[in-house]
């Protein structure tokens, strides 16, 4: 029987997105609030005859993903904030060795063990590199369960296309809330097939290959870095994604991503009903960051309010994009606090809207 809609939490939708993207390998370690994803993969990967491993640590999981990826498979791991910190060395190696992988971070409150409530405080870690060395990872920030599914599918294509890790950055609220997903089980979206003529499969009929990031020759590592930077430049030109709302006549604009953008959307729609000229920019890719639309918008408006579940991390990228062309205000909650519509109205009224 065909079902038109099914109900899933964000964590499960990410899992199903990975299954439908032909993810062949998953390794993960339990941590709240992303456990539904690991449990979903345990069941579904088995059903599909693919590889699931509950690893002994997040470090081991990312290195298993490294192995599966270099062997040519689409591979994923997931965790939440403290666990993602543990994966950073592995992510740096993946970038250095130009290996594709998908890493899911369902953020919780920090620093330290923090709590298990929703947070966006790992923004810097995700978009600025996170591990050692000069590098970037593509960062996708879904704001609904359906978008979590779709962006996960996309993330595997981006990872393979650019031979670079992609991070899905969600938060505990997105991971655990349930929403209907239309027709995903009947999804017939085409799986792109990327030739992996670099993978280690045994050297039968060809010269042996080496996967490495260790480059000791004179100038070798600098040239490798230049090549990586060219790739990052190309990604930042081609892969910017964002959603815009009422920018045509907006005098003030809210900027938020993920869960918080939905609260902001409610605020914007409500104020539009009161004839306030307010708009919204929702970055979908946090790196590459949609700086062009923000800069263009800043030239035409009276002010921007950035709303985040952090002390103001994306705020810095917004300010860099705005280049002082309009005032930038901030409304943030930390440590598991979620900004309320009232708090946002209050902040807007201080901005004389």
């Amino acid at each position: 029987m065909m079902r038109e809609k099914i109900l899933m939490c964000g964590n499960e939708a990410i899992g199903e997105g990975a299954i439908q993207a032909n993810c062949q390998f998953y390794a993960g370690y339990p941590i709240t609030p992303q456990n539904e994803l690991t449990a979903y993969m345990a069941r579904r990967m088995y059903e599909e005859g693919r590889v699931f491993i509950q690893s002994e640590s997040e470090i081991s999981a990312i290195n298993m993903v490294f192995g599966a990826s270099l062997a040519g498979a689409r591979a994923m791991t997931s965790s939440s904030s403290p666990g993602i910190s543990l994966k950073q060395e592995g992510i740096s190696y993946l970038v250095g060795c130009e290996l594709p992988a998908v890493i899911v971070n369902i953020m919780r409150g920090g620093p330290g063990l923090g709590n298990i409530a929703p947070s966006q405080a790992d923004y810097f870690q995700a978009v600025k590199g996170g591990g050692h060395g000069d590098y970037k990872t593509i960062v996708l920030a879904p704001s609904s369960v359906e978008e979590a599914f779709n962006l996960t599918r996309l993330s595997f294509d981006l990872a393979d296309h650019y031979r670079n890790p992609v991070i899905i950055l969600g938060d505990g609220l997105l991971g655990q809330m349930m929403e209907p997903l239309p027709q995903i089980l009947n999804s017939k979206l085409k799986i792109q097939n990327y030739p992996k003529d670099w993978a280690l499969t045994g050297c039968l009929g060809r010269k042996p290959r080496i996967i490495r990031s260790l480059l000791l020759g004179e100038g070798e590592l600098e040239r490798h870095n230049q090549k990586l930077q060219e790739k990052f430049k190309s990604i930042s030109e081609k892969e910017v994604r964002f959603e815009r709302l009422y920018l045509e006549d907006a005098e003030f604009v809210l900027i938020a991503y993920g869960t918080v953008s939905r609260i902001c959307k409610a605020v914007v729609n409500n104020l539009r009903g009161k004839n306030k000229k307010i708009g919204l920019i929702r970055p979908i890719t946090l790196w590459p960051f949609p700086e062009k639309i923000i800069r263009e918008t800043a030239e035409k408006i009276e002010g921007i309010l950035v709303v985040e579940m952090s002390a103001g991390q994306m705020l810095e990228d917004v300010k860099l994009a705005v280049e002082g062309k309009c005032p930038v205000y901030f409304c943030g909650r930390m440590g598991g606090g979620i900004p309320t519509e009232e708090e946002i109205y209050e902040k807007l009224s201080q901005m004389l809207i």
Partner: protein
Amino acid sequence: MKITNKTSSTNQTSKALRKVFSLPASMRDVAMHYCSGCGHGIIHRLICEVIDELEIREKTIGVAPVGCAVLAYDYWNFDTTEASHGRPPAVATGIKRILPERIVFTYQGDGDLAAIGTAEIIHTANRGENITVIFVNNAVYGMTGGQMAPTTILGQKTETTPWGRDAQRDGFPLKISEMLALLSGVVYVERTAVNNAKNVLLTKKAIKKAFLNQIENKGFSLVEILSPCPTYWRMSPVEAVKWIETEMVKYYPLGVIKG
């Protein structure tokens, strides 16, 4: 190189010229960076000879460690990857699970396997991953300049145990092979040494068995090889191989530990 078979008579010269030594197909014809008297070169070669003899070169994937053998892929003529420090068993797990028909092995030193990578080796062994582990124990960190290893023996002087390893201050040398042998997922563990010709041959035999176990899908196999490091033992190569026999084997006895 030509070696004449001295036992043959001179009027049969053409038949007497017999090639008894050549580079294994699994080995690249390049100079190694290892210090004189180091055991890594011997062990690299033994692995390559075994891979040739088992005719698995074109289906083998090696995982190199961080440590002195970090450049092993420059010497091996088959697919090889690097791994972050201590994580070769996790990387090998990922490869082997995706390509179960390929032959996957890790090459790890004592710091890589028995210090920073302790969790990975224990859990990979405990899962019974069908891989081969070559564990080179030279009781010291070579790459970083001679610091204490988890396997440094009591009294042994290193950069970080300048008066000798003291159990009270530095803990005891780790017998990780004996620990691993306790795990149900492990089918074969043997400790050998490359300090003399006989032991080199026994080491080759052990390496061959560890690869054969994988070919026959038997499960996790590990060969620990006691290997000289004259540079950071502050000895001549001759003193170093003697030290293995007189000191190291007292704490790390040679032989089959399991299987």
